[in-house]
Structures are given as structure tokens and as C-alpha cells.
């Protein structure tokens, strides 16, 4: 299925993040917009969309929950049906004051003391994937670091945390593809999806009601707001959120990090020789290759720095562009592996900041550590295919192994 809008010729007046060229050339496009004096791009596509690209403006929108609603967070040709303040996937689609209740109940299971114990399991998972690559002949063997490695790690962990069956990872990746990548198609096409995720989740909820166990689904079924159990739609919506947000985001971060190391032997060598640098390298991977762009809908007509924003138009929140803003970071376009001051926005800004960041950091750290421990030297071995849409990362990433531990 191809998009309905077609290629972009002017990114300032007709930006489209779901055209393949956008993620392929994202860093250049943001530089061109900045150098062209355009801090807020626009398009008539999607029923109207604005895209601020500086750190200051992205932050301003993210903090302003009065003029910008989270009712819709994935730009597409339609508009969300579920109403604020809950929205279809609470708390990410919720507005204040409901938002804080939906968020607070999800914080404890993602706090460090609940996430840290997963580390050995994630290491085993990574090593299992590396083992499955079979015989590796240094200098000739080519592996796909996205298809054979990165894409399997987060989906496996989050589906286990939710207590889902072990063999449905392909199905979840198809859901992510339809939700996040197939956005510039007619609404009717999106509505014709044969994935039926709601029905899948209803079956999981039913099964967990009958057989409660120690996982996130049971946790949500037992959770309360103000002494009341959550509605079925709230439970299911939060499961959608955890599943979708927990898959292609970290998968993309792992892939982009390996993509960088495959082209920067000095950075790879530093990580191999000086493991302590990971504390800073991890944050620099997140800054330089932040995978997640969020979105808002304009809540009511208003003027935003001279832009006449209309109710129900989209506003893109490209945190990855904010992370490369020279006004915010020294050497913003470079990669400084031991950057000590790094207030990046990879996990978002404001009340919707990623609540899974402890898990994401752990998965990214372990995935890189185990990959470079097994393959201390590697290089790009062909063309990378990038995702399309709001989550940016390699989907095909051929890498030639030059040294095997």
C-alpha cells in the first residue's frame, strides 16, 4: 500500500514524515529547515499539520496541554474517535486531569527496582539471538542486525511482561507496522485491518481474569483509580499502549546505535575497550538517534508564534530534531561518545515523558553490550532500509562481521 500524497518537493511548506525520504534524510532535512530560517514547517496533508523543529518550540508545545491535546498522538489521515480525557490508549492519549491518575498507576511496574531484575533475562535473550546467527566467518559473514537481532528484543520482553503467549511476536510487529507506518492511506483502508488487536487483547484479558498471575495484564485488572477498578476499555487501551510503545521504539534505538557503530570504528573501539563509557554513550545514542516523534492535535484555534493553528490540525513533536538543535547542544550534529552534559529529549518532555525509560535504557544498554562483546569489529555491508513514520530506525541493516569474540 502506497501513500496517497506522494513525494515531497518542499519540506518547509509540505512536510510529510511518512514519506520514505523523511526518515532516510531526517538529519539533513532538519538542518535545511533550520538554515532556511523555518523553525515551524507545515503541510496541508493529513487535514493540516505543523512541525516545529527547534528544541525550544518542541518543548513549548509538549508543556502546553491547554492548547494541544493528546487525544491523537499518531498523525494519520483520520481523526481519533475516542474522546479526551481518557483517549484510546491511556495515559499517552489522555489529557489532564485524568492523565495523572492513568499515569501514576503505571509508574510502579516500570520503576528501576521492578525493571532491573530483568537484566539477566535480557542478556540471555540477546545471546540466544547471537547464537542463532549460526557459523560466523569473520570478514565474509553478513548478518542483518535489524532482522536477526534488534527487532526481536523489545517485543519479546514486553509481551512476556504482559503475560502473552510466546509465539505472537510476528503478529505484534504487524500491528506496529499498521498503527505507526500505514498512516498516509485512506481511513477506510486503516479500518479494513484484519489484525483485530482489540479482540486479541480481549481474549488475553478474559484468560487473565480466569487465571490471574504475576504480570502486567493482571496488574492492570487489579488496578484502581479512586477506589474503582479500571474500565475494560482503559485496561485494553493501556495494554495497546504498552505493547506498541514497547516494541518499535527500542528496536529502532538498538538498530540505529549498531548502524552508527558500523560506520564509526573509533566509537566501536572505545565501547569495546572502555566499558565504563557506556554510561555516557547510551545517552548520546539516545540523543543523536532518538527514535520517537510524538504528535498532538490543536485543541482550539490559536496563533502560535505567527502560525495560525486551527482546531483539529496535527502538530508533530519531533523530539529527535530537538535533540540535534545547535541552540541546545554543542556539536549537535556530531556524536560525542563521552558527552557529559546531555539533557536530551529522547523520552519526550513534560507530563507525557516516557514511563518505560528505565526498561528502554536497560534493553538498549544490554543489546549493545552483548552485540559488541560477540562482534568487536563490524561494518556496514549494504543499504539500510529505514522505517517510515513517527518511529525512526533501521528495518533492514546488513552488517559484515570483521571480528568474532
Amino acid at each position, binding site marked *: 500500500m502506497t501513500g496517497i500524497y506522494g513525494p515531497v518537493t518542499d519540506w518547509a511548506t509540505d512536510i510529510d514524515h511518512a514519506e520514505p525520504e523523511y526518515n532516510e534524510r531526517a538529519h539533513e532535512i532538519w538542518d535545511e529547515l533550520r538554515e532556511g530560517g523555518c523553525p515551524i514547517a507545515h503541510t496541508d496533508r493529513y487535514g493540516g499539520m505543523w512541525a516545529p523543529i527547534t528544541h525550544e518550540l518542541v518543548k513549548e508545545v509538549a508543556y502546553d496541554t491547554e492548547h494541544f491535546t493528546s487525544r491523537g498522538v499518531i498523525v494519520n489521515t483520520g481523526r481519533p474517535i475516542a474522546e479526551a480525557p481518557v483517549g484510546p490508549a491511556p495515559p499517552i492519549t489522555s489529557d489532564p486531569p485524568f492523565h495523572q491518575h492513568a499515569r501514576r498507576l503505571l509508574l510502579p511496574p516500570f520503576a528501576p527496582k521492578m525493571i532491573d531484575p530483568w537484566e539477566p533475562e535480557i542478556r540471555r535473550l540477546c545471546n540466544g539471538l547471537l547464537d542463532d546467527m549460526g557459523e560466523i566467518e569473520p570478514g565474509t559473514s553478513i548478518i542483518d542486525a535489524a532482522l536477526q537481532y534488534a527487532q526481536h528484543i523489545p517485543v519479546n520482553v514486553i509481551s512476556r511482561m504482559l503475560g502473552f503467549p510466546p509465539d505472537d511476536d510476528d503478529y505484534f510487529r504487524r500491528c506496529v507496522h499498521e498503527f505507526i507506518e500505514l498512516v498516509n492511506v485512506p481511513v477506510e483502508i486503516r479500518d479494513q485491518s484484519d489484525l483485530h488487536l482489540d479482540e486479541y487483547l480481549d481474549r488475553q484479558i478474559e484468560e487473565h481474569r480466569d487465571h490471574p498471575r504475576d504480570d502486567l495484564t493482571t496488574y492492570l485488572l487489579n488496578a484502581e483509580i479512586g477506589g474503582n477498578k479500571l474500565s475494560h476499555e482503559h485496561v485494553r487501551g493501556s495494554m495497546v499502549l504498552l505493547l506498541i510503545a514497547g516494541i518499535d521504539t527500542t528496536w529502532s534505538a538498538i538498530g540505529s546505535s549498531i548502524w552508527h557503530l558500523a560506520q564509526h570504528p573509533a566509537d566501536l573501539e572505545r565501547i569495546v575497550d572502555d566499558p565504563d563509557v557506556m554510561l555516557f554513550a547510551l545517552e548520546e545514542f539516545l540523543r543523536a538517534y532518538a527514535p520517537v516523534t510524538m504528535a498532538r492535535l490543536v485543541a482550539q484555534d490559536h496563533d502560535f508564534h505567527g502560525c495560525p493553528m486551527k482546531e483539529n490540525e496535527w502538530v508533530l513533536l519531533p523530539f529527535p530534531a530537538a535533540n540535534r538543535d545547535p541552540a541546545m547542544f554543542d556539536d549537535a550534529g556530531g556524536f560525542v561518545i563521552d558527552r557529559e552534559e546531555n*539533557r536530551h529529549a529522547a523520552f519526550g518532555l513534560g507530563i507525557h515523558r516516557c514511563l518505560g525509560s528505565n526498561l528502554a535504557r536497560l534493553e538498549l544498554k544490554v543489546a549493545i553490550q552483548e552485540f559488541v562483546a560477540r562482534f568487536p569489529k563490524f561494518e556496514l555491508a549494504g543499504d539500510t532500509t529505514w522505517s517510515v513514520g513517527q518511529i525512526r530506525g533501521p528495518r533492514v541493516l546488513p552488517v559484515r562481521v570483521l571480528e568474532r569474540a
Partner: protein
Amino acid sequence: LFDVDDYGTAIVIGDGSVAPELEDKARLAVANCPEYAITISE
């Protein structure tokens, strides 16, 4: 220097005084707090 509560919120341990060997780490915390919520007084 910091502990993390059940909700993942960082809290200062004790009265906030920093041992000399932890001063570098305290400065790192100041330089990286996303909400600019940490300050050092000397």
C-alpha cells in the same frame, strides 16, 4: 546521593550533603537533570 521511590521518582538521600568523593557525580546529576531540579550550594 539519590534513591528512587516506588514510583521511579528520585529523592535525595539524607540531608543532601555531598561527600568529597561524590562531588563529581553530584555535578553530573546537576548537568543532566531534565527538569533542572538539582542545584549544588557550596
